[in-house]
């Protein structure tokens, strides 16, 4: 119905109209520019954060699980005193011995002690007591020397593993295997150097001195009611659900909990965290989407206003176009196209600014946003939203223009 020449001139007219009223067009499109830019930046940041966090989860291991003490919700404190809900060494042994889906499990207890080596003395280093399975659970092995063995634990050997930072802080030789250090006044033999891994949750605990001793030894150096947590690994990520049930069953039995009793501990597999995090990220993205919706609404009203101004300014021109044969549909499309073009130009500028902001985010040191990036779908969505805004808010002015009576329009002014 409408020939190619119409579309050609409609598009060029839309752009020349914007160009002729540059500052007005810019101010009008500002709502859309700001909306699209801020949403683009937020989505970029979220995307970056998400891939970073997921990568960290991934490096921790998807089949990992954690057990920690937990007071039941709304339960009175005196009914569940801390001593009663703390995890016990016997419980972790039961998990190791009875849970078939658990491939490796270790208790971890931390105690702050003074450490000496020669003249060097550091106060209050965190010493972790672990089982040999810790190597597998944490995916951290030795660079030099040997890892812990069950004999170290069973015979309560005074041996330790240390990391590179601890070697530096204690002024030990580059390869300290075979050296002795004093931990809490007791003599320990360094048997191995543990690799330092970068992947720690959200950058916490990055690079610091670490010293590990057998759990059985650490137990002796702790108070009577000491805190320990359990970290373990299922045979595969697919059995995480059943594995959790198994651990829960064993622990409830150990604690003598009746079926109606609330749980006094928590078992959580890493995949739960991943799912929760993904849900959170999706939620925030949706909120960002909502914000863009509102800002586009505000921007859209500006578009409608300026289009109404444009229609009334150009009434005579509309009259002339009708006089030489423009159908109502041709006029409608012409003005819709102008509104859409205005919105798309705004959206384009908004995306460009958003991208720039995303790049800026990657440059902030320590913000953990190195991977911030605008995903393709966000670009497509921004354009689509902008176009829809143009159509929705351009419709009323366009209909108004299309309905103008040719002779009334020509008489205008």
């Amino acid at each position: 119905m409408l020939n190619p020449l119409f579309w050609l001139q409609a598009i060029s007219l839309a752009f020349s109209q914007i160009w002729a009223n540059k500052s007005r067009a810019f101010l009008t499109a500002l709502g859309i520019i700001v909306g699209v830019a801020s949403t683009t930046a937020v989505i970029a940041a979220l995307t970056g954060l998400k891939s970073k966090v997921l990568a960290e989860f991934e490096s921790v291991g998807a089949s990992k699980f954690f057990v920690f003490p937990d007071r039941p919700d709304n339960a009175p404190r005196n009914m569940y005193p801390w001593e009663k809900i703390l995890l016990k060494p016997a419980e972790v042994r039961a998990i190791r011995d009875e849970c078939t889906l658990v491939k490796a499990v270790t208790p971890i207890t931390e105690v702050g002690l003074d450490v000496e080596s020669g003249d060097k003395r550091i106060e209050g280093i965190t010493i972790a007591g672990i089982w040999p399975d810790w190597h597998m659970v944490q995916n951290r092995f030795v660079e030099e020397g040997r890892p812990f063995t069950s004999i170290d634990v069973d015979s309560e050997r005074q041996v330790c593993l240390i990391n590179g930072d601890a070697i530096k802080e204690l002024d030990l030789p580059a390869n300290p295997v075979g050296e002795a250090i004093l931990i809490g006044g007791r003599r320990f033999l360094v048997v191995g150097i543990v690799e330092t891994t970068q992947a720690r949750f959200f950058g916490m605990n990055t690079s610091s001195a670490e010293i590990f001793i057998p759990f059985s030894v650490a137990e002796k150096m702790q108070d009577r009611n000491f805190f320990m947590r359990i970290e373990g690994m299922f045979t595969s990520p697919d059995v995480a659900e059943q594995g959790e049930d198994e651990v829960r069953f064993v622990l409830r039995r150990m604690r003598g909990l009746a079926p109606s009793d609330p749980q006094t501990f928590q078992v959580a597999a890493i995949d739960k965290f991943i799912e929760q995090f993904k849900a959170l990220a999706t939620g925030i993205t949706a909120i960002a989407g909502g914000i863009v919706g509102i800002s586009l609404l505000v921007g859209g009203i500006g578009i409608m206003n300026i289009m109404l101004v444009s229609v009334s300014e150009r009434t005579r021109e509309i009259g002339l176009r009708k006089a030489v044969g423009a159908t109502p549909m041709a006029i409608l499309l012409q003005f819709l196209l102008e509104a859409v073009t205005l919105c798309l130009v705004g959206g384009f500028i908004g995306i460009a600014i958003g991208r720039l902001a995303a790049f800026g985010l990657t440059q902030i040191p320590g913000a953990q946003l190195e991977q911030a990036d605008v995903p393709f779908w966000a670009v497509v969505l921004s354009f689509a939203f902008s176009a829809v805004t143009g159509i929705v808010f351009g419709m009323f002015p366009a209909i108004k223009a299309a309905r103008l009576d040719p002779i009334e329009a020509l008489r205008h002014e």
Partner: protein
Amino acid sequence: MPDPGTTAIIEVRALTKIYRVGVETIHALRGLDLSIARNEMVAIMGSSGSGKSTLMNMLGCLDRPTSGAYHLNGRDVSRMNARELANVRNEEIGFVFQSFELLPRQTALENVELPLVYARGGWRGRRQRALAALDRVGLSKRVDHRPNQLSGGQRQRVAIARAILNNPSILLADEPTGNLDSQTTVEILALFRQLHAEGQTVVIVTHEDEVAAHCQRVVRLRDGRVLSDLPIAQDTAGRHLPAVRAATAEVGVPAHAAAQAAAHTAAHATEQGGGETC
């Protein structure tokens, strides 16, 4: 009726147009009949407010009558919807306005091309067609000028080129020389005569006898009705023609034409403004 043998392009019967402004009703046209045949050149005259522009807007399908029938090339235009009327305006009608109505930011060529933008087909070769139209109005050297770089007469030539681009059945001009000086008026009228000589049917609204003298036929309106409809030789406007002047000097003015002229003069004297609200 003049030229009863030729086919009528315009056939108007009992046309009325009533405007309502507040509580007032203005009868701009009161049952007007008119037919115009192919390749005629007609002048429409009448005092201010007599309904000339109202009639032209109807003929140009820019406005709809309150009642009455209008057949353009045998098609009943009064029953068409807005889209069909737009297509009729595009294909059948060329309209020339007193105030030119050019798009200020576009060049002469682009202004002339405008009807092709809305054409239902045949937009190919638009450059050549627009250039040819500009050539016909004698403006082939000004194609890239914008309206503000052109004189009034040149602007009206661009407007005429635009009007004839789609080879309309009829070229309508409402006081096309109203904004032009007398020298330019003569040139523009010569252009209309040339187009008429090339086969174009032309209707011109004018106040000036000198302008009407270029036409074959003069229709005079009064109070929204046809007052007289005569060949130029019998109309008072004809006294400006050398040939008619010579003839009347010899034989004297024909009786009924003289009566018409007297009535017309009386109308001018007593009913300036058409008796309608201004």
